[in-house]
């Protein structure tokens, strides 16, 4: 089976895909090891769906190579590739019953009739749809259709499962239920999965790794925690949640850390290659990692409250900091007396230690 290609289940090597003059995927390299749940996350037009379609074989790369289980599959048509896919609109065959939909891939692979029946039954049991065999897709709810699509995809035991925003058309409650089910199912059968979404929360909830895409390239790839706690670029810092960004100055280096001056205060950040003492640096901090204090409390950035949004569990404060810079601070309402500041109050902003990160140009 192996032809000396890469070991991971899915590998993209310097893949570029252009449509006319539009470059949808730009020199992208990606390794997806066996069993990993990887999300491709990004705004619309970032190239995430094209990447998925390149793996599927619905598109062919303009440059570069695609490997599935070590085999180069450039120009291998989709129906000869070892994958299956769940589409955004589920794409269930309306003229076939649930059982026939699920059996379709097995029929195409010429699996004998008896084995086919067993596997269809097992797959439907796995998605809790036993007893729905003879229904037609039109007679099912959105969530049930979703599960049929999932059963149809996993019953063929593909090397890779591709999911193209499969939860996008479900309502919020159902979507959250399906997220849990999807992840449990994926873990149970240990299938390598590529999940395309523009929903950051969904990507963080489901994935082992998230690749954040922008302009046809991967901006940053890592575990959900890495991406949230240590975004590398402005784009990632603002696409995953909100960030307060500061222009600082490196004032020294010690023990793998850099001391950075932001206005009147100093913070420590992880040392990054490319930083130099005395040079400028862009740093950022998440809104929930800033503590508000009294205006005369030492070690804080002075700011004035411009807008307050009370959300029950948290309160969002919008502030005007030094040089008119706007800041966002989220405060957890741990007691009824937490954060009772009102508009126009002067406060001081205290950045939690180790929560400040350096942004590369992006």
């Amino acid at each position, binding site marked *: 089976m192996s032809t000396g290609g890469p070991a991971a289940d899915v590998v993209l090597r310097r893949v570029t895909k252009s449509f006319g003059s539009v470059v949808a995927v730009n020199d992208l390299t990606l390794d997806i090891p066996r069993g990993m749940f990887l999300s491709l996350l990004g705004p619309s037009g970032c190239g995430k769906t094209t990447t998925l379609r390149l793996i599927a074989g619905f598109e062919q790369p303009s440059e570069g190579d695609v490997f599935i289980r070590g085999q180069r599959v450039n120009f291998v048509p989709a*129906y000869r590739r070892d994958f299956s896919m769940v589409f955004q609109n589920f794409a269930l*065959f309306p003229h076939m019953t649930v059982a026939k939909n699920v059996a*379709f891939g097995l029929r195409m692979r010429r699996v004998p009739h008896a084995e086919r029946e067993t596997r269809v039954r097992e797959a439907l049991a796995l998605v809790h749809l036993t007893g729905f065999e003879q229904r037609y897709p039109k*007679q099912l709810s959105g969530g049930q259709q979703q599960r049929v699509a999932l059963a*149809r995809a996993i019953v063929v035991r593909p090397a890779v499962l591709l999911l193209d925003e499969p939860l996008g058309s479900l309502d919020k409650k159902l979507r959250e239920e399906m997220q849990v089910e999807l992840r449990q199912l994926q873990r149970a059968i240990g299938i390598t999965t590529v999940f395309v979404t523009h929903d950051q929360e969904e990507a963080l909830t489901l994935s082992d790794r998230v690749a954040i895409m922008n302009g046809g390239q991967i901006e940053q790839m890592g575990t959900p925690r890495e991406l949230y706690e240590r975004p590398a670029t402005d784009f990632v810092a603002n696409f995953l949640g909100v960030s307060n960004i500061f222009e600082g100055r490196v004032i020294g280096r010690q023990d793998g850390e850099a001391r950075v001056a932001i206005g009147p205060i100093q913070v420590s950040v992880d040392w990054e290659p490319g930083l130099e003492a005395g040079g400028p640096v862009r740093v950022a901090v998440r809104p929930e990692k800033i503590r508000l204090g009294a205006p005369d409390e030492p070690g804080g950035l002075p700011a004035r409250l411009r807008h307050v949004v009370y959300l029950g569990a948290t309160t969002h404060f919008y502030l005007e900091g030094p040089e008119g810079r706007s800041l966002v601070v989220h405060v957890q309402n741990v007691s009824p007396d937490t954060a009772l500041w009102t508009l126009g109050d002067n406060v001081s902003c205290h950045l939690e230690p180790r929560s400040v990160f350096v942004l590369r140009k992006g």
Partner: protein
Amino acid sequence: MERLLRFIRTRWAWALVLPPLLFFLAFFVGPLLYLFFVSLHDVSQAEMYGTRFTVENYVRIVGDPFYLFIIRRTLTAGLAVSGLSLLIGYPVALSMVRMSPSRRSLLLMALLFPLMVSNVIRAYGWIAILGRRGVINNVLGDVGLLQAPLPLMYSLETVVVGLLTILLPYMIICLVNALLTVDRNLEEAAQALGAGPGRTFLHVTLPLSTPGIASGLLLVFLLTLSAYVTVQLLGGAQSKMLVSLVYDSVMTFVWPRAAALAFVLLAISLAVTTMMLKGIRPQRVQGKG
């Protein structure tokens, strides 16, 4: 208040439906019932129909080998024209739905263009090509390939070809409309599950286009059954069909027989329509068996 509104709204709906409904009753259902009444009477020399109530007209049609032969020929022509137009039209429709919308509408316009030329003129066009002194016989005769002119006219085949060229656009338009509603995602889903182009077509595209196949076949079949000018001009006296017999009966003032023939034609249409719908099952696209 709400009830009043609903009352007004339903009244409005009735007001809109009523005029065409009355028109339809007065000028279609009424005459049809009257025609049936006429068909159940004997022939009269002086009146439109005689005084005796009888099913003799129908018995004669069903019992007469001549009529049975004409009925069979009519059915053959209908099935041949509709079947051939499906076979020729499907690949055309399939390639048209794969085109860009602008090119597709251009081609649809081109398809409609021949419909602007009268059937009489088109039939004479065929005569100019296929007749004894037509283009084909003249050219083949001039180059010395023929001793005597080929008898290309006045046969069932000529009628079928003539009707096919007239009715093919209807079939293609029905098929294009049906194929456009087939979600391309479904074809990709089939491929993702390992179906090549052939099996994707067989298991997904073809069954999902059955509404278009059914409407195209029925439209072409029924139009063939009721065609007159083309049949008359290209088929001549040798290749008469049921409609020609209705016409002949009317021309000789045998109204009850004409009426009975009309109902036999209607019965055939209904029977074939039912069988086609049973066979093609276009409703399966809706996921109802």
